[in-house]
């Protein structure tokens, strides 16, 4: 029994160790910044991976929830004087409620229809954020006050590296637990065959809605962090390209692999930074990389490599 628990926690322990040890090799604050960005995106990607990899439901509008979280911590303190940490929670709750209400009708759709419905939802959020300039500052965006906790103000990339790291590991544990709960098993049954799950007595609609709501809250918290960390936010955070980026991170890392979520975030956050040297060719190279990875490692980096290593061991 003890051995099983140890095995399950192995990836969490390994990643915790990496997150803690890695900063000793950071030559400058810039690396903390990249690290924080990777961890923030990884948090959103874990949530989306729960939906895509485990429940088998695609969402091309997840950046909408990123946007709700981001603007919660921008508008709440700016207009209502509420503390940032409270706004972060309120934003996550709001995202959850929105996901619950939108998800009820949308999640009955399947495949490409679900894709276009979620895409439409994400675009609607981005359009509202762009046009309600009175609250959101329009396309130019707005500044976000710093997070203050018990008189300590979170500023600097290193502070955010640790905050994002701790939250990511928390989110990781939560996701692992969720997958081993009855809900998690029901979701995997839905992934394999929705009708079979239905016949077995799984309340398919309800389980899908639950996971959609949870994954929206992951994205919302990540969005809030992103806004607080950058100190400025524009409607791009909720845009179509952001949604695509999140999906690409899930697919690149490996659908259904939580470690893969982190790997996907690392690849798609670090690579564009590395490519700024070729700033002209950045977009073209990024597209090329996504294509090449998807063609040659189509199940995602982590599952493909895992299979390869298992083969070597034999």
């Amino acid at each position: 029994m003890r051995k099983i628990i140890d095995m399950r926690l192995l990836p969490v322990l390994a990643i915790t160790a990496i997150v803690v040890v890695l900063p000793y090799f950071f030559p400058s604050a810039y690396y903390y910044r990249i690290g924080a960005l990777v961890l923030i995106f990884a948090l959103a990607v874990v949530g989306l991976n729960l939906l895509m990899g485990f429940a088998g439901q695609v969402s091309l509008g997840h950046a909408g929830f990123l946007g709700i979280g981001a603007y919660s911590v921008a508008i709440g303190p700016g207009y209502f004087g509420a503390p940032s940490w409270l706004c972060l929670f309120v934003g996550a709750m709001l995202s959850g409620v929105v996901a619950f209400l939108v998800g009820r009708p949308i999640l009955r759709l399947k495949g490409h229809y679900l894709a276009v419905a979620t895409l439409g939802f994400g675009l609607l959020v981005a359009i509202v954020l762009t046009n309600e300039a009175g609250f959101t500052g329009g396309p130019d965006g707005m500044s976000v006050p710093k997070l203050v906790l018990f008189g300590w103000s979170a500023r600097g990339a290193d502070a955010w590296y640790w905050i994002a790291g701790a939250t990511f590991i928390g989110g990781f544990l939560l996701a692992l637990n969720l997958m081993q709960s009855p809900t998690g098993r029901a979701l995997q049954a839905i992934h394999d065959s929705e009708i079979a799950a239905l016949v077995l007595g799984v309340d398919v609609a309800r389980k899908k809605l639950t996971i959609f709501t949870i994954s929206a809250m992951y994205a919302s918290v990540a969005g809030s962090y992103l806004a607080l960390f950058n100190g400025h936010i524009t409607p791009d955070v909720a845009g179509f390209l952001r949604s695509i980026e999140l999906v690409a991170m899930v697919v690149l890392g490996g659908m259904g692999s939580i470690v893969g979520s982190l790997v996907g975030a690392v690849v798609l956050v670090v690579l564009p930074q590395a490519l700024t040297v070729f700033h002209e060719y950045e977009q073209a190279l990024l597209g090329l990389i996504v294509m090449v990875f998807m063609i040659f490692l189509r199940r995602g980096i982590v599952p493909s490599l895992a299979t390869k290593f298992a083969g070597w061991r034999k």
Partner: protein
Amino acid sequence: MAELLQFVSSGLTVGAIYALVALGFTLIYKASDIINFAQGEFVMLGGMTTVFMTLAGVPLPLAASIAIVATTAIGVALHRFAIEPARGASAVSLIMITIGASIFLRGTAQIVFDRRFHSLPPLLGADPIHFGGAAILPQSLVVLASATVIVTLLWLFIDRTLLGKAVLATAANRLAARLIGIDTRRIVEFSFAISAAIGAIAGILITPIALTSYDVGTLLALKGFAAAMLGGIGSALGAVVGGLLIGMIEAFAAGYLSSNYKDAVAFLIILVVLIFIPQGLFGRAKIERV
């Protein structure tokens, strides 16, 4: 009344372009079950190539022809070097490949061309025709006429030629089509070529009205995709009707509500339609076998 006529004419013009993009989606989807998100990039390539050819002194008809041929070649290359090697990958992986391709094409276009907006001279002059109090651009008529011709030709081709029937057979049942000797791989490649050509023509037609730049493809792809879904994916009639409907809805929303929210209205309506008619207007409900 004059206002109404104005909105209808501008709605139909934009709608015809959406319809052509949606038709491209439908063709490829029919032949291969792939949603090609690079469809909008074909439109951009058609417009941008023509613009830069004419800037280099090539006469417009020749420039347009070169643009169509070049875009078609890119469509074929996309299939051969990106889609074909990934045969058997999951639907999401294939979507990601086409999205990767669209980012790649956009990124390459901003290097090869530039990042500014460009226009082309309209085919029949720039003086608007006054009709019932509405001012209609001659180019709008060109767009509508060309779209009608393309749709008719495509229908004749599918319905009357052997190659067209092979496309239909591939769409109906790929395995059965292969068994009776149809090279389905060639058919899919062919559908990419036709879709690219249609996209390029749409791009050349709309450039005098709506301008073009390296990044116009994304929104066009989204609207075209939405149009195809609205009509019911896989239905050519649905693609045309869906495209025209979205164009009209947008024009009316921009005219009567707010031009800021015209995109929002289009997507809101798509959401509502999908919720109440999940298979789209002309799509057949799918029954899943276990």
